[in-house]
């Protein structure tokens, strides 16, 4: 089943607070509310990392929440996009250099979109999420390309399927 079009039309959001001040979190909640309503982009706030496509992280990463952050990121299926919400998630902000803060999400997981502001406005979050949609589409295509590259090695007239790919790998193993 080809999931790519659905992923673009309806990305699911996972939200994790890695030690922020709640400010950006309530603005993410405000994004779900009728005034800003990001559900018109098909987005749903989900609590399960295994079902989500976009990870919204807020807060400078504290020493206790960093393992949880990395684990949540690892549990998300490919393709995935990470948005860091707010000044402290992007750079550490005012908390940079405090003894229990690591200062920025991008020290632990790759971040695709940085949203600035303390606190972020809902309009900025929506802007960042829409940028993330384009990146998600690009990443989805990137995932498909790796299969297409293998297609060139197969002789003409052949339909590519799993067995062909497996056949190619076999001689390498022996």
């Amino acid at each position, binding site marked *: 089943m080809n999931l790519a079009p659905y992923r673009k039309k309806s990305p699911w959001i996972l939200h994790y607070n890695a030690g922020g001040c709640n400010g950006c979190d*309530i603005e993410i909640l405000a994004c779900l509310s009728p005034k800003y309503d990001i559900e018109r982009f098909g987005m749903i706030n989900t609590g399960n990392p295994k079902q989500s496509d976009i990870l919204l992280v807020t807060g400078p990463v*504290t020493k206790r929440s960093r393992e949880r952050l990395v684990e949540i990121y690892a549990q998300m299926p490919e393709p995935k996009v990470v948005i860091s919400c707010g000044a402290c998630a992007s750079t550490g*902000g005012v908390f940079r*250099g405090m003894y229990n803060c690591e200062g920025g999400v991008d020290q632990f997981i790759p971040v695709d979109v940085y949203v600035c502001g303390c606190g972020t406005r809902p309009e900025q979050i929506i802007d960042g999420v829409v940028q993330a949609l384009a990146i998600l589409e690009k990443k989805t295509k990137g995932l498909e390309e790796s299969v297409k590259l293998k297609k060139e090695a197969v002789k003409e007239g052949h339909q590519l399927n799993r067995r062909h790919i497996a056949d190619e790998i076999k001689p390498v193993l022996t």
Partner: protein
Amino acid sequence: MGRQYEIPVGAQHISLLEPLHFKFTTENEKIIRTDANVYYVHRGIEQACCSKFKFRQVSFVVGRVCGLCSISHTTAYSQVAEKLLKLDIPKRAKYLRMLVIELDRIHSHLLCLSHVAENSGFEALFMKTMQYREFSMELLEAVCGNRIQYDFSIVGGVARDLKPETGQLILQRLKNFMPQLEELVGIYQHNRTLSLKNKGVGVLSKDDALRLNVVGPFARAAGLAVDVRNETEDLLPWKEVGFEMITDTAGDVHARNMIRLREIYISIRIIQNIINGLPESALLTETKAFPDGEATVRLEAPRGELFYYAKGNKTQVLERLKIKAPTFSNVAGMVHAFTGNEYGSAAAIIASYDPCLSCTAR
């Protein structure tokens, strides 16, 4: 005697805004023991305030302790610094501080109510409450210039003045909000489905509330008349602007909802009184003194009593700053009130406490 199961909730969970870990020990779906772990978001703000930042900068740093009640933190710090500097602030600044604190209380209480509705499974009411809440965010933006993290109070006064047309806008919006609030009260009070989920759930008795040192709406719902606005008059003149104590007796989730809704009425009355009787004076008292000695300040944040202690040593940097947030006092009561409830209603009970862990862990 059934088998006991341990169910973890958190640190990442859809019903939680913040990393908070509960471990429920359940028997036949009934919670018999709870362990709470609230220190995921400890950042070390107190230490940084005493070493990295000058005392005038600290009021902006402590605002970042919590995004929901940042004005309470900045105001409490400004007051404690003014006590150290032996500074008297202008009357208009006091009134403007109270105005923003009450606007903040409206938005915080409505957020908590919507969260309770969502966690009780009433998604439509969540949307409705969030929709009605937007007016308070717009008013805060009109008064302070930012939707959250206002940085309104500074040491010696306030940072911005209230224009007369902004005051009129606030009065107009509050007038528009009144029928919406009546509607919300009707739903939260009489809706049968929500009542089944909320009445008699998460009960904390008055004796337990007193014994476990609970503060804020959590305590007032149990029948304890604790409110700093009722006790202190020296820093902010609350009674002058029409403060009134509100208590309930049931102590369950429904009672907490009703306490919050009735407090919004009081907040609206206070805001109207402030705008109609705003005194004319300067906004800021300048001084070149350095903080010296020790001082404490108590302030009623939306979640309860906020306590600040500061010690200065005649330099730019404070020697010690201690923050005791309302949720820190409530943790013992929170853990206690789960006992005997169904596991299914745990999410609604958590939301009804209105926990603010970034305050607690700092």
